[in-house]
């Protein structure tokens, strides 16, 4: 009986994909890599959903030559995953359009460079000093009225 072993393998694969995806989202500094991490995370979630409908020794929910199999796996998670994949593709395409737009505006996809660029532009457009945090070394800017120096 190899079903439990297969289950463990598939669960490891699903959680591994989820883990790699979350790790990529947290640590990657390149926007395209973050998008790819979200794709991996989605794949892991879909695999997990598929596993929830599995039954030991059951056939795929398709009737071949009019013969109804003894046991068929749950078709509802499969339909849900079909929906999830399509919506995932739509969201990925939209993310890529935003990434392209960001690249056109700033000529970089490194989020650390993007942060300084965007904060600089925001500060210039709004006419406010660059944002600081409570932990930053005290400068005269922090004490000016109307400066969002972290905290309410």
């Amino acid at each position: 009986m190899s079903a439990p072993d297969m289950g463990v393998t598939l669960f490891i694969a699903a959680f591994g994909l989820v883990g790699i995806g979350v790790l990529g989202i947290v640590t990657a500094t390149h926007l395209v890599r973050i998008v790819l991490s979200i794709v991996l995370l989605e794949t892991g979630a879909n695999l997990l959903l598929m596993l929830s409908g599995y039954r030991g020794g059951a056939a795929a929910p398709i009737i071949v030559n009019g013969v109804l199999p003894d046991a068929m796996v749950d078709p509802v998670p499969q339909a849900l995953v079909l929906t999830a994949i399509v919506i995932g593709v739509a969201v990925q395409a939209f993310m890529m359009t935003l990434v392209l737009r960001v690249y056109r505006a700033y000529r970089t996809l490194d989020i650390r460079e993007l942060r300084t660029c965007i904060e600089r532009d925001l500060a210039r457009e709004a006419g406010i000093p660059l944002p600081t945090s409570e932990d930053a070394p005290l400068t005269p800017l922090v004490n000016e009225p109307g400066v969002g120096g972290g905290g309410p």
Partner: protein
Amino acid sequence: MRDYLSLLFIAGLAFLLFIIAGELDFGNAPMRVGQGINQAAPGQVGAANIVTSVVLAYRALDTLGELAILFAAATAGGLVLGRPRPDAPRDPDAGFILRTAADLLFPLLLLVGLFVIVHGHLTPGGGFQGGVILAAAFFVPLLARPGTRFRHTGFAVVEGLAGAAFIVTGLLGLIYGGDFLQPLLGPGAMGSLLSAGTLPLLYMAVGLKVGAELAGLIARLAEFEAVEP
């Protein structure tokens, strides 16, 4: 340091998920809805592919919402990317081998896509999968010849008509069957091409809509000038 902390966090998350999964009874999940559908779907809907009966009969309203999300994403993509300038510089055409291969692939991909769509209620496949193949069929020639102009208007018309056909089929189900998107025309002979009532029509609409939408979206991505003129 931050990377190590993230790694530790992921390891903890995976461990937690794995412990929860260990508590589950793998392969014997209690799924009364799924078993009920497996029992009832062949007689009620008549599609050999039960996933298709779930997608287009029991959860057809969700599929309509899914199409709406796809439409919203494609529209938003077009909105963000904008229209290319008419005099925008184009990449030169690819070499002879790639152009000939694209010409050869176009009819084959079209055929495979339509086959997958039409047989969506009999075999694994259907409107979404076949629609993506159709989109690839229209995108491969564009990759081989970036200079040719992609006709967005025609694709938008196909997409709108397909979406309207889906909703009209649903409204006909409301008038003649009593429920929105109720399958009509009876189950028919299981396993034949003309079975499962209006499900093949719905999948045709889905396939054409997905194909036209994705082709248009990918073409917009390809036309976009990433470098400011």
